[in-house]
């Protein structure tokens, strides 16, 4: 049966601003299905973003939402969670926002293992500002600022999150719509920092520079490059070249930051003999 997205959308906001075929809309729908499945309450949920096309998402959804300065979403979200640890806190945003200008906030939120769910829409480009390259633009690809091919190696978002200390890290693509809500659901249920990277498409900026003539071609590419982690264990390095692993890539239990901080407060109060 048709899912009732309207119950979670602010009235009168559709059609949204995203270009035809932009995957951000697919991710927003997956996020709402996950929120529904986990039974999060509107008044107890905060959805925070920075700046960019992906970061427009909170404007459409009927929760406590915060649209902040470019790259600062994780910092604002940390503040909310520290002040109100009982709230469910989500961060949404793009690769430019979270991994370029906001990379510092991103790694430190991972390091602290603060209990929030970060959905990172990685379309390998600064979509909003005209298609400049980001730290996630594949080496050799063309953007408006790398017209002869990008010389930089990429940041692998999932590996960066794992290395920095996030305790739940997963990846999927905008093509794999059912996996988006499954992984976000698992991330929401995990206690600690959960990062869900969604490889996304930006037909307008990335597609134009890299000879993807249509949205459908970009979607087919996402379908072709994704390999579930279970299948990957049966494949040779040759077969895995150019592919990306999808599914839950990492999960562990570690002390959660707000709980650790509560203990500091308790020790400080005991020392002050309140």
């Amino acid at each position, binding site marked *: *049966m*048709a*899912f009732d*997205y309207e119950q979670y*959308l602010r009235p009168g906001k*559709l*059609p*949204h601003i*995203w*270009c*035809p*075929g*932009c*995957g*951000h*809309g*697919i991710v927003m*729908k*997956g996020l709402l299905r996950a929120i529904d499945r986990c039974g999060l309450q509107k008044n107890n949920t905060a959805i925070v973003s920075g700046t960019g096309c992906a970061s427009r998402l909170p404007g459409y959804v009927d929760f406590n939402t915060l649209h902040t300065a470019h790259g600062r979403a994780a910092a604002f979200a940390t503040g909310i969670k520290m002040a109100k640890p009982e709230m469910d806190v989500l961060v949404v945003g793009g690769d430019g926002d979270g991994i370029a200008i906001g990379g510092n906030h991103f790694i430190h939120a991972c390091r602290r293992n603060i209990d929030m769910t970060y959905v990172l829409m990685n379309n390998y480009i600064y979509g909003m500002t005209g298609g400049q390259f980001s730290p996630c633009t594949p080496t050799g690809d063309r953007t408006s600022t790398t017209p002869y091919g990008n010389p930089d190696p990429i940041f692998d978002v999932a590996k960066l999150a794992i290395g920095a200390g996030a305790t739940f890290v997963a990846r999927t693509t905008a*093509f794999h*719509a*059912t996996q988006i809500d499954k992984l976000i659901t698992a991330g929401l249920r995990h206690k600690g920092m959960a990062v869900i990277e969604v490889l996304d498409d930006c*037909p307008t900026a990335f597609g134009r520079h890299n000879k993807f003539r*249509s*949205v*459908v071609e970009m*979607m087919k590419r996402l379908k072709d490059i994704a390999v579930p982690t279970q299948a990957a264990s049966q494949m040779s390095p040759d077969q895995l070249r150019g592919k990306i692993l999808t599914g839950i890539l990492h999960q562990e239990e570690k002390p959660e930051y707000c709980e650790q901080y509560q203990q500091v407060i308790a020790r400080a109060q005991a020392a002050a003999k309140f």
Partner: protein
Amino acid sequence: MNNPKVEVIEDYCKGCSICVEFCPTDVFEMVGFVARVVRPEACTRCMLCELRCPDFAVKVY
């Protein structure tokens, strides 16, 4: 269960063709800049079109 009903909200559709291309039973066709339901009887209610439409424009009942 009753027969599936597939609906495209034309005011929301931006004509990306995702539903047209990936419906396993070719229920949609592009007509000008919007998707149209042309073979509703072929729908198996797999829900893929509704899940993948970036614009909240497809509903399957």
